[in-house]
């Protein structure tokens, strides 16, 4: 299906969309906590995916992981754009209108603090933490995606957790 899509077959790409849209949406929603933004970014992920499909190479990581890295970059762009006008603290994970997913996302305060802290990690650290703990990918899959060794991914994970400890310690 990926090969057909890469040859320019829109219907095959539409099937890929059907297979992965839930996972991509979930990943984006976790990062932005807003239905509207998550919907638009999800749409953007697939459009960018289509445009960049010729660059996709089977590297041992699942196709959806490749889509999630596009999502990751778009989320970073989104926050970067917002940061120009508002402070990071105020813009990250704002409480949104009371639609169901938002209500679902109203988790414990500590969890929210942790999410905010994750958003402050360096992009590569964020990606490793989210892919590993939120999306549940194996080290080998993340390593293939980042073109690094598994050991290097574990080092990034270790540093990210230490950084999270520092950020959370500063807040408390």
């Amino acid at each position, binding site marked *: 299906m990926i090969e057909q899509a890469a040859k320019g077959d829109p219907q095959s790409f539409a099937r890929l*969309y059907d297979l992965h849209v839930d996972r991509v949406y979930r990943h984006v929603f976790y990062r932005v906590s807003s239905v509207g933004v998550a919907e638009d970014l999800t749409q953007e992920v697939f459009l960018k995916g289509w445009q960049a499909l010729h660059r996709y190479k089977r590297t041992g990581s699942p196709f959806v992981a490749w889509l999630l890295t596009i999502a990751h970059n778009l989320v970073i762009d989104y926050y970067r754009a917002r940061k120009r006008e508002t402070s990071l603290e105020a813009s990250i994970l704002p409480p949104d209108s009371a639609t169901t997913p938002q209500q679902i996302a109203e988790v414990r305060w500590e969890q929210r603090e942790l999410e905010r802290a994750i958003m402050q990690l360096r992009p590569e650290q964020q990606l490793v933490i989210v892919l590993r703990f939120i999306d549940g990918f194996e080290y080998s899959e993340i390593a293939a995606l980042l073109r690094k060794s598994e050991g290097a991914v*574990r080092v990034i994970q270790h540093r990210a*957790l230490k950084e999270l400890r520092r950020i959370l310690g500063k807040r408390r």
Partner: protein
Amino acid sequence: MATKKEEILAQCIADVKAGRASVKDCLARYPHLRRELEPLLKIALAIEPPPEVSPSPTFKARARVRLLAQIHAQRPVTKGRWLRYPSWTFQERRFSMVAIVIAIIVALAAIGGGTVYASLDALPGDILYPEKTFIEDARLFFAFSDEAKAGTYLAIAGTRLDELSRLPGERSRFVEGLVEEYRYNLERGLDFAEQRIEQGGNASGLLARFQERLAHHQEVLQTVYEQVPEEAQPAIEHAINVSGQGLERANRLRARAHLENAARRMNQVSEMAQAGRMDEVIELLGEYDEGLASFVEAASETGDVEVLLELARERLALVFVDVLAIVPDEARSAIEDARLKTMKGFDEATEAVGRGQDLNDAWEEFEVEWEEFRPQWEGEMEPGSEEWQDAWEEFKTERGRSQLVPTPPIP
């Protein structure tokens, strides 16, 4: 290269998450790293996946259509188009929507009316086939309500089936793809029908159309099965299963649609009763009764009779609680009668179905019994009271005994 510390941390996280060890076990295993490991482990374990969130079916379908429209229209997209602006607004969104609509119209105009017409007969492998699917995407794009979307998806599923039946033998490589498209469109259509029910719309007519079309699909597929080359038969068998499952789902949804119609009638009863319009209350109670019978008839066509009866019982019990809490006294006894009939009827029907009786027959029998029993208690005892329950049981027993007497054969 990871040092031992990072490997140990990764191993501990994996062990604790998999339930192979506790945090305490891990720390005891590496006492020299305890001070560093403990806080990092706690943070790692506190990062939990979010609760299951899914995009709405409406968003998924719209986004799919927009994606295909953009791909087909080859619309150049600037980097980060929607995201570069901090003041990202609805207006921005509307602009991109308008752009897509224009892209569709321009593309349709470019294709040309004659070509559009000619493409309607196109089969997979034909030059005009992409235009045909593009037109379908455009139709979906302009189908705004759930009902319109459901109907359009059903029509597209029918088109895939028509293509299957006309596909020449040398193009059998397309059979599997067509079956997959048939499944996809059928399920999407039913998703939208379900959404219409959930959002309080009347979907019984729409679902009747699904039932009628799906019964026809089954016939077409049987014919196609006999015509296709042997290697394509498993795909057609799969399509027959898909169609059968779709019919079963449409049957269940239709029962649910009738149930919701009955619930809506009862809410209207409540509104009319509060407005003191008793004539309309009586009329609406009659319509509620008909709605109930329609639900029973539709439910009896499914393989989930008991589940549907339970669902209906719970749904209507809640409606009656709300309605009886607010209606004026003059309407109370008529509504209480309807409630009692509903609850008793569902109990009796569930029991009868459990004994292997057909639901429709059981319900008809119950309705006759209910009317025969009424003169025994009306004005005599409190409906639903213990005394009333005993009288009902006695009535049923007597009736059962009389039914045991065999009817003499006609000479």
